[in-house]
């Protein structure tokens, strides 16, 4: 039936599950991904889900990748088509030579299939209906049954899946054994009725190492716990809600006084994003480490307060889990589209510090660092995650913490210092780094109090509308931003094997796809030096990198090449030398996309000499 040779690949393929949301498939699919990890084979899973709770299509994609390419690959080698609504599109999306796995209980007309793929039918509904009577059980165990069939087809070790089920249902014997039973129902049916294994196979390897499997949002929340955040105020918004929920869960485990049971944290679900950032600013003004988590629309609402934080110099940490905008946009799709909105948030002349973690490990590190930076710089620090890192499990190096590390609480004038007669001017630049001292409310009976305001004031916090006084303060804020350059995480550079005139700049969740694309580009004969930007303001090495290359590609996931705009604006360079490579359809950027876009541009640049072309 197949006129294309079936794809044959060990530990390097993409399986996509097409499900209906609310059907309980998510946990079975995640177990599939984890089971492959237990084989020592890296995976990179992605949830593709609607802004809906039940009934709409949802997909879960697992890229099995012995080489450890954690970006999305594009294309599907095996489709587990469990959703009739999306059948046609799902079948059409399979790579030629790929595989279609489906529930064959009801006969399907041959027009619903393709000739160039291998079709694998398992009567899932028939098996479940003959085993279970409860409708919910039928629904849930059907997922485990297809997992069992897949284990046989892909030559997976069932013991490893059983082990996972054992861990998940530890202490719940009944659930444990019934899940194992369902797994074997599916596995045995496949072994008895189908040719197992197929061309796609999972073979035990040792490429996972000590890496962990964690969502970026959870890692960022853990970073907030380790970084000493005590106040969290938030308003639910996809894809950021799981940050606050994870922070709550982590705090319940690690932040209660063992003797009194009391909480060493306070979490408030605000009435909106304005209240959330207001609470953060009030708490930070009063000396607590506070943060909020939100997404694009929330940032828009917070901008007035962000300006206050900038101008009155109050620390704040905002985790922005970016999603596709503008407006409500595509709430459950990923983008890196709030770069400009955050870098220059609020009215008047403002600039803010942005951190761009590439994966959960950096989300953890940068989240913790954000609190030190916020207190050191007395301003808002944005942790710029996105849905791709935030809401997907990502294989990541283990999280690390140095127990000797103390929090940098910044420049705090204490009661003792005031008693010594130190001159306290809330906006007085005593060290030349643009950062003044602050006092916490309630510090001293007669010294160190001041009136915090969003209006202009002099170095001693006294109201002033004098032009020179205002300009003096604004210039100091510029100085402070320059200080920030050397405090934020530096860009990381990786040079091509041979010297090249071409470079590429990228950041955040583009990282794994970029790393993979470099290999593809090298195979096409293109050499590129790489610079991964990890923060704004840009370190001086960004300017050097630009100076050292004729053309620099800026790869990002938004329409208007926002990082490129920021680079051009902040470095005052000729924009022609910065080539935008943008991907913004809401799906994660892929190595294939990057390699093609850059490769085509490179080919175009390499004009063949005329004489050679004619001859």
């Amino acid at each position, binding site marked *: 039936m197949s006129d294309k040779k079936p794809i044959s690949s060990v530990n390097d393929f993409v399986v996509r599950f097409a499900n209906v949301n609310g059907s309980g498939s998510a946990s079975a699919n995640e177990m599939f991904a984890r089971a492959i990890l237990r084989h020592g084979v890296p995976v990179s899973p992605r949830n593709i889900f609607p802004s809906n709770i039940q009934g709409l299509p949802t997909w879960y994609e697992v890229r099995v990748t012995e080489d450890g390419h954690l970006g999305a690959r594009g294309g599907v080698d095996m489709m587990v088509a469990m959703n009739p609504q999306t059948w046609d599109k799902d079948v059409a999306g399979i790579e030629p030579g790929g595989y279609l796995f489906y529930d064959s209980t009801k006969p399907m007309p041959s027009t619903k299939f393709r000739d160039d793929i291998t079709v694998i039918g398992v009567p899932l509904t028939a098996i479940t209906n003959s085993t279970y009577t409860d409708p919910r059980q039928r629904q849930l165990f059907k997922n485990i049954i297809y997992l069992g069939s897949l284990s046989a087809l892909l030559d997976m070790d069932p013991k490893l899946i059983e082990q996972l089920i054992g861990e998940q249902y530890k202490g719940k014997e009944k659930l444990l054994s019934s899940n194992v039973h369902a797994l074997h129902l599916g596995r045995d049916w496949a072994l008895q009725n189908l040719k197992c294994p197929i061309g796609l196979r999972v073979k035990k390897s040792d490429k*996972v190492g*000590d*890496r*962990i*499997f*964690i969502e970026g949002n959870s890692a960022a929340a*853990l970073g907030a*716990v*380790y970084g*000493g955040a*005590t106040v969290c105020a938030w308003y639910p918004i996809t894809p950021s809600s799981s940050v606050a929920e994870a922070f709550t869960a982590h705090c319940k485990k*690690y932040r209660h*006084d063992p003797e*009194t*049971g*009391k*909480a*060493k*944290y*306070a*979490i*408030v679900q*605000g*009435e909106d994003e*304005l*209240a959330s*950032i*207001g*609470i*953060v*600013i*009030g*708490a*930070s*003004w*009063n000396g*607590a480490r*506070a943060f909020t988590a939100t997404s694009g629309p929330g940032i828009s609402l917070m901008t007035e307060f962000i300006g*206050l934080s900038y101008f009155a110099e109050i620390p704040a940490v905002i985790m922005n889990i970016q999603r596709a905008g503008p407006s409500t946009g595509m709430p459950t799709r990923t983008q890196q589209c709030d770069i400009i909105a955050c870098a220059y948030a609020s009215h008047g002349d403002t600039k803010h510090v942005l951190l761009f973690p590439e994966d959960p490990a950096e989300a953890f590190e940068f989240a913790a660092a954000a609190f030190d930076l916020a207190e050191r710089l007395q301003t808002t620090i944005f942790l710029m995650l996105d849905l791709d890192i935030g809401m997907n499990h990502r294989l990541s190096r*283990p*999280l*690390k*913490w140095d*127990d000797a*590390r*103390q*929090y940098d609480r910044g420049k705090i004038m204490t009661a003792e210092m005031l008693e010594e007669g130190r001159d306290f001017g809330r906006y007085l630049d005593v060290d030349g780094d643009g950062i003044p001292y602050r006092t*916490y*409310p*309630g510090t*001293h*009976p*007669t010294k160190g*109090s*001041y*009136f*915090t305001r969003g*209006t202009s004031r002099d170095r001693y916090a*006294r*109201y002033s509308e004098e032009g020179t006084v205002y300009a003096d303060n604004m210039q100091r804020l510029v100085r402070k931003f320059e200080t920030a350059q050397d405090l934020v995480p530096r860009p990381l550079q990786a040079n091509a094997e041979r010297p090249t005139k071409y470079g590429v700049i990228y950041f955040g969740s583009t990282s794994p796809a970029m790393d993979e694309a470099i290999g593809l580009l090298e195979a096409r004969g293109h050499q590129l030096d790489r610079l991964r930007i990890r923060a704004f303001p840009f370190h001086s090495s960004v300017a050097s990198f630009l100076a050292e290359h004729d053309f620099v590609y800026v790869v990002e996931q938004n329409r208007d090449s926002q990082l490129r705009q920021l680079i051009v604006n902040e470095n005052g360079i000729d924009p022609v030398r910065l080539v935008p490579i943008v991907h913004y359809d809401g799906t994660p950027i892929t190595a294939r996309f990057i390699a093609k876009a850059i490769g085509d541009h490179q080919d175009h640049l390499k004009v063949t000499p005329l004489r050679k072309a004619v001859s």
Partner: protein
Amino acid sequence: MTYIAKPKFHHPGLKKNELGYTHRDYEGKISTLCAGCGHDSITASIIEACYELSIEPHRVAKISGIGCSSKTPDYFLGNSHGFNSVHGRMPSVLTGANLANRDLIYLGVSGDGDSASIGFGQFAHSIRRGVNMTYIVENNGVYGLTKGQFSATADRGSKSKKGVTNTDNAIDLVAIALQLGATFVARSFSGDKSQLVPLIAAAIGHKGASFIDVISPCIAFNNHAGSTKSFDYVREHNDAVNRLDVLVGRDPIAVDYAPGTVQVVEQHDGSKIALRKIDADYDPHDRLGAMTFLQKHAAKGQIVTGLLYVDPDAEDLHEHLNTVETPLNTLEADTLCPGSAVLDKINASLR
């Protein structure tokens, strides 16, 4: 003008409170509001209340939004930290500050534009949460700083200075505060210091969300005939249900009251409020009764003042959140950070 330094010298015989502070120690900068502004009387009442309570001035955090009323924290408690924040957002800033350090006294100062319009939501939610604070609205029914537009507390049918009649219904913040579960609710009049000072003192002593709506006529834009927030109108329609004496410390009540006319309420901080009843039937522990009473009297055009509701056993947000007694802003890495050994375990659980 705030840039004019206020002289620090004072009469050597100036009375001192228990802590040895004089009135002057509770003052702030010179007010920049219009001469005769009701808000300045409220400022004076806050100073008086804090002096009488012998509060350490620097242990108060005074937080406001934007507007004439929100400028006033600069004019009292000059040794306290103040925060003139964003329009309508005092409640959230105060909530955050309170979470960071539960040991300070939180004084929120706002206006009717700030709390009944742009910040209506924040007003409502801070009350709902039971934030331990004294929330004062200096209510003049008008936007003073932008020259006389109606605010949301302006009564329907009242006239602006330019002669325009207000056709929108008024928001009664006291009624809303009662409905939202505020545990100390009062209304007063900036022109009645003898009523206002003890109300502020009692509100500070209350643990939980205290709300005081103070009618405070705007001398520049809302003190004309036809206004229902003018000095004359409020004096004529003021219907006080009770008057207060706040008794600091645990001393027995020394004042002689006629039997049956006084109700003593013991507050969480040990202070006592002696309520002298004016309306014999009014019960300040009856939330529903208070709401009905207010509505009935409002329909008759009367402005009910006094301590309208109090629950002396109220809980605050910190109790709801079960936070530690130590202020969160004093905790450091040794108590906040779970450490590397825990992180290793977390890593292991994620493989």
